[in-house]
């Protein structure tokens, strides 16, 4: 009984900021709590202020492409790092994980320096590069962790039964990595979508990400429209989770998180 109460209370505490945001987004007036009424008026700016839609688009596109690139690099890299022995292996491992050790602001500034030196001014290229750099360590870490505990005998069994290296990878290795890949996608996309400290140095004047736009709203407007933006995102993710639960079952995906801890 008591452990359940503690668990429920903890969940409540963790969800509190989210709940408060959603509640405030329905405020008829300014940022007050408790609510004086119920209104949808603050959802209107999400449509009228054009920077919301465009930056949301940028964040989604950059997040998706950067995650895809990180997976495309991270999965093969992890396979090699975990399964092969070669000189300098540990060095390369550390190299892949190094962006985690460097303050994000430093990563952002340094990248900007390099882009200026090399003459790359396109914000999409800059953003994608920066986001791949900060998401790749998560992909490598999650995939490597799952590969460490991988029972290679099932691969041997597949080869014994007639599957060559490619078919073994396709039919045995990859499906068994599924939950780790899901975890990697979630980590990568989340890191990219959330990012401020690196993106702030790499965006263009009109080509920018959602978190940065919301940041400007806090000093330009400072009204519940920010809460409405949060509410929209929280609502969308909630709907996604419900759909996922109905289609796949979150317990199956939760196996992914056991890999990471």
């Amino acid at each position: 009984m008591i452990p359940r109460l503690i668990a429920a209370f903890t969940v409540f505490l963790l969800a509190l900021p989210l709940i408060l945001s959603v509640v405030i987004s329905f405020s008829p007036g300014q940022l007050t709590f408790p609510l004086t009424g119920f209104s949808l008026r603050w959802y209107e700016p999400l449509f009228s202020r054009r920077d919301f839609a465009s930056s949301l688009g940028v964040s989604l596109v950059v997040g998706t492409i950067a995650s895809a690139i990180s997976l495309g690099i991270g999965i093969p890299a992890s396979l090699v790092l975990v399964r092969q022995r070669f000189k300098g292996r540990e060095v390369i491992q550390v190299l892949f994980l190094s962006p985690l050790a460097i303050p994000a602001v430093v990563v952002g500034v340094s990248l900007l320096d390099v882009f200026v030196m090399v003459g790359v001014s396109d914000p999409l290229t800059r953003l994608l590069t920066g986001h791949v750099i900060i998401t790749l360590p998560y992909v490598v870490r999650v995939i490597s962790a799952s590969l460490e505990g991988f029972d290679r005998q099932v691969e041997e069994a597949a080869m014994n039964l007639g599957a060559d290296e490619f078919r073994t990878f396709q039919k045995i290795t990859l499906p068994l990595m599924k939950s780790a890949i899901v975890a990697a996608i979630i980590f990568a996309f989340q890191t990219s979508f959330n990012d401020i400290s690196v993106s702030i140095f790499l965006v263009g004047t009109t080509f920018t990400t959602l978190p940065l736009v919301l940041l400007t709203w806090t000093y330009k407007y400072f009204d519940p429209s920010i809460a409405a933006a949060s509410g929209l995102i929280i609502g969308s993710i909630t709907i996604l989770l419900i759909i996922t639960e109905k289609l796949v079952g979150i317990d199956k995906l939760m196996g992914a998180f056991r890999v990471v801890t």
Partner: protein
Amino acid sequence: MTKQNDIELVNVTKVYGKTVAVNDVSLAVTRGEFLTLLGPSGCGKTTALRIIAGFIQPTHGAIYIKGELMTDIPPYRRNTGMVFQNYALFPHMTAFDNIAFGLRMRRTPENEIKSRVQESFELIGLTGYENRYPRQLSGGEQQRVALARALVIEPSVLLLDEPLSNLDLKLRQKMRLEIKRIQEKTKITTIYVTHDQEEALVMSDRLALMNKGRIMQTGSPSDIYEFPRNKFVADFIGQTNFLAGKVVSMNESKVSIQLDNGLSLEASRSVIDHHSTKITEQLNVAVSIRPQKVKIVKGQPSKDLRNTFAGRVEDVEYVGSRVKYHINLFDGMGIVAEEVLFGSPNYRVEDQVFIILPPEDCLLVSTD
């Protein structure tokens, strides 16, 4: 000659850095034979098996499967069927799909797959379990699915790597009879690896005992048990007494040995010639005699019996159906005698007894 042999290893050696895992091993397995590689951990038996399967490349030597040279052929083209120690079932596939896997890799038509896999389920006695996942099966059931998976592709040889070590005793005893039954029914050439000598003796047509990368002796279970050729084999299989000594003389009917403690012993010449390695005079040997062959009597034995010694019972081990007496011979040497029990033990600690070592049950192994 090679046509009869489904598997041949010719001077196979595997070296890892400074360790020689498999040391110049040559072995032939005939069609339909059940051969067991038996030995302690680290003797090289699993390495040898994996070399046959193709997961390990030998440093020297050649492997032939059904007469074809296979040394450089990858595992997926050798047509061997392997059962792994921890079953290695594909966790994301049903039992049906696990067994069907090999057939699908060979692009067998689906309707043929369906009937052959169904037959497999009947063979292993698991009809109705087709849609279960490995995690929904018990250890013994997983074992049987792993076996069916290897057999359904009708491989040239069935390879089993200690498949029963993860099961409890009763299940192990049941499963080894199951495996043997299935093997006899399908008549498939089989190589079995284990460190459990009882398993090896029960299941095999032939045993190859390995130690430190070498084959110490091959033979049928009774051959190996009754007539071990060296100390390692005599010690590893069953229990034996070793009495160290030296050959003092030989004639056509007997071999005389003087034991290190001064006692004299006689062995039968014909037995020695037949089953031991070459014995010469002055050779340092150990007399090997199984506890079951040592006779104990209470009263002084008749004068015309050879190899009689006086002793005292130091310890009695009661094992239920049998009893082991640890006897101290008055000249310092210890011997273990075993008897089948039909009630309570005949002798107790501190009893004075006589033991008789029948000459025809004394084997000699060279200790040089």
